[in-house]
């Protein structure tokens, strides 16, 4: 290990944050760029499935809450892009990577929101899983990412409560509403479990990322934690988790749960999920349709500059 690399690792081991201007291994930089931008892209694409119900939210309050949530997601995207930019990549470059399909975003957003209950389920399960992933990253070694995560987590836990609240209203409602809630849980449960990534045995890069304190827990650890926390919440709602193998294991002090269909996960990752094409098309359309807007603002800035120069 070269001396600067050793110094770098010692800092990390001593829980001292790495800041953008400091020396860092190329692998660390690249991994972080990939991870942070992927996270940012997820926030951006994540606007779409929920945005799908903004115009159809059932009350003015629910509409306002959902708007605020989607706005928060865009905000998270914004400060995550800023954190990534400190590592030497521009937002336009990242956008280009998203739109060309080179960069990934969380596969969960390739599932459709088919009923209002999905908005509840996303808040409860998807934001719940996201928090589970993100809470440890608040302690990650890279300063800007760690600080961004602290902000994000605060808002996400708020979103999760709102999602749970939607579910609660539904299960206390009419039969049709209860059915809607159960159906949403049925559809979102396994995709939510997949959010923690493939099983540890198949997970690449994990050891290095953990040494660098970019990743703080293994996928399977977090997934177990999520199941353990969420199953009692489902019980409280009176909803049935769609897993016949799910049961409390007294000995382990954890819930056992059934096999996950990783085939589905890889299919969605490959682009064959129910909404991959729609999500990409929506983002590409937004970007392409907006070109004139961005160019117009640029042209105005140049004109203004030129006028200022001429006046001087």
């Amino acid at each position: 290990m070269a001396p600067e690399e050793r110094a770098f690792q010692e800092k990390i081991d001593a829980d001292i944050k790495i800041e953008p201007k400091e020396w860092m291994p190329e692998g660390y930089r690249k991994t972080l760029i990939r991870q942070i931008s992927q996270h940012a892209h997820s926030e951006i694409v994540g606007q779409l499935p929920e945005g799908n119900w903004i115009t159809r939210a059932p009350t003015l309050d629910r509409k306002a809450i959902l708007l605020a949530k989607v706005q928060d997601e865009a905000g998270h995207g914004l400060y995550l892009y800023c954190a990534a930019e400190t590592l030497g990549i521009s937002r336009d470059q990242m956008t280009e990577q998203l739109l060309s399909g080179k960069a990934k975003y969380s596969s969960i957003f390739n599932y459709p929101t088919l009923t209002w209950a999905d908005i509840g389920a996303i808040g409860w399960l998807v934001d719940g899983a996201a928090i589970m992933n993100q809470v440890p990253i608040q302690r990650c070694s890279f300063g800007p990412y760690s600080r961004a995560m602290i902000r994000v987590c605060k808002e996400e836990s708020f979103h999760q409560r709102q999602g749970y609240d939607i579910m609660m209203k539904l299960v206390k409602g009419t039969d049709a509403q209860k059915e809607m809630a159960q159906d949403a849980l049925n559809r979102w449960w396994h995709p939510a479990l997949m959010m923690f990534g493939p099983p540890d045995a198949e997970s690449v890069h994990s050891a290095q990322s953990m040494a660098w304190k970019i990743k703080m827990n293994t996928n399977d650890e977090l997934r177990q934690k999520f199941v353990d926390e969420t199953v009692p919440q489902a019980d409280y709602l009176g909803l049935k988790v769609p897993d016949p193998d799910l049961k409390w294991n007294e000995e382990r002090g954890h819930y056992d749960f059934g096999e996950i269909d990783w085939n589905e996960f890889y299919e969605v990752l490959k682009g064959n999920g129910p909404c991959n094409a729609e999500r990409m098309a929506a983002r590409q359309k937004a970007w392409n349709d907006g070109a004139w807007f961005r160019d117009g603002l640029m042209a105005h800035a140049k004109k203004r500059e030129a006028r200022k120069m001429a006046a001087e």
Partner: protein
Amino acid sequence: MSTDVQTDTALFELALRMGDNTLILGQQVSAWCGHAPILEEDIALANTALDLIGQTKLWLALAGEIEGKGRSADDLAFLRDARAFRNVLLVEQPNGDFGQTLMRQYLFDAWHLPMLTALKNSIETRVADIAEKSAKEAAYHLERSEDLIIRLGDGSDESHTRMQNALDALWPFAGELTQPDAIDDELAQRGLAPDLADIKTRHEERMRAALKEATLQVPEAAIRKGGKQGMHSEGLGYLLSDMQWLQRAYPGAEW
């Protein structure tokens, strides 16, 4: 419905008109979420929609109170058919491209701020209170939309053309905001709302100055109106069928 309630019709209409304007505009703006040209605009539009929906809650709750028949803000928003809506035609015009959305917002904001500012002096304190709360938000919206239409109007050739097209399409609808009918006259006489002639002056002055700075040509066109009296364009029905879907499909459910 009870028949012994004496609804103050003019006041009820005022609250409906204000609330329906913000509801329909908010609804339309909210459809941009996740589809705006830059991330900052996604955020800004969500924020605008959020403010407008917040104001809607206040106005429609007041309308329900004035009506005295037990209708809540949600009842009014989600259970009226198109003919009972009182928003101006401007706010129900389609989102179009982003330039049309911005221009629609600007023409509205440039009226909304002076209107709310004047409504702070309404002798009806419930109206004055809502105006007080809303005016700050409206001022911010106006600042933002005015800045953008100036920058885009005086931007590239394409952005100029798009903003001019937007203005040509939407300008005919701006006049309805300040064209009084019998209800507006009654409201002004009773000190409940301002004389729309005054608002018109301020609205037009502000718009013409900004549009000039934006290098845009104000078109000559007859005023298109009717929304305040419930005569809408065909687009409103479609907007409502989405907006009201859940309330209609699951009658009586709580959400």
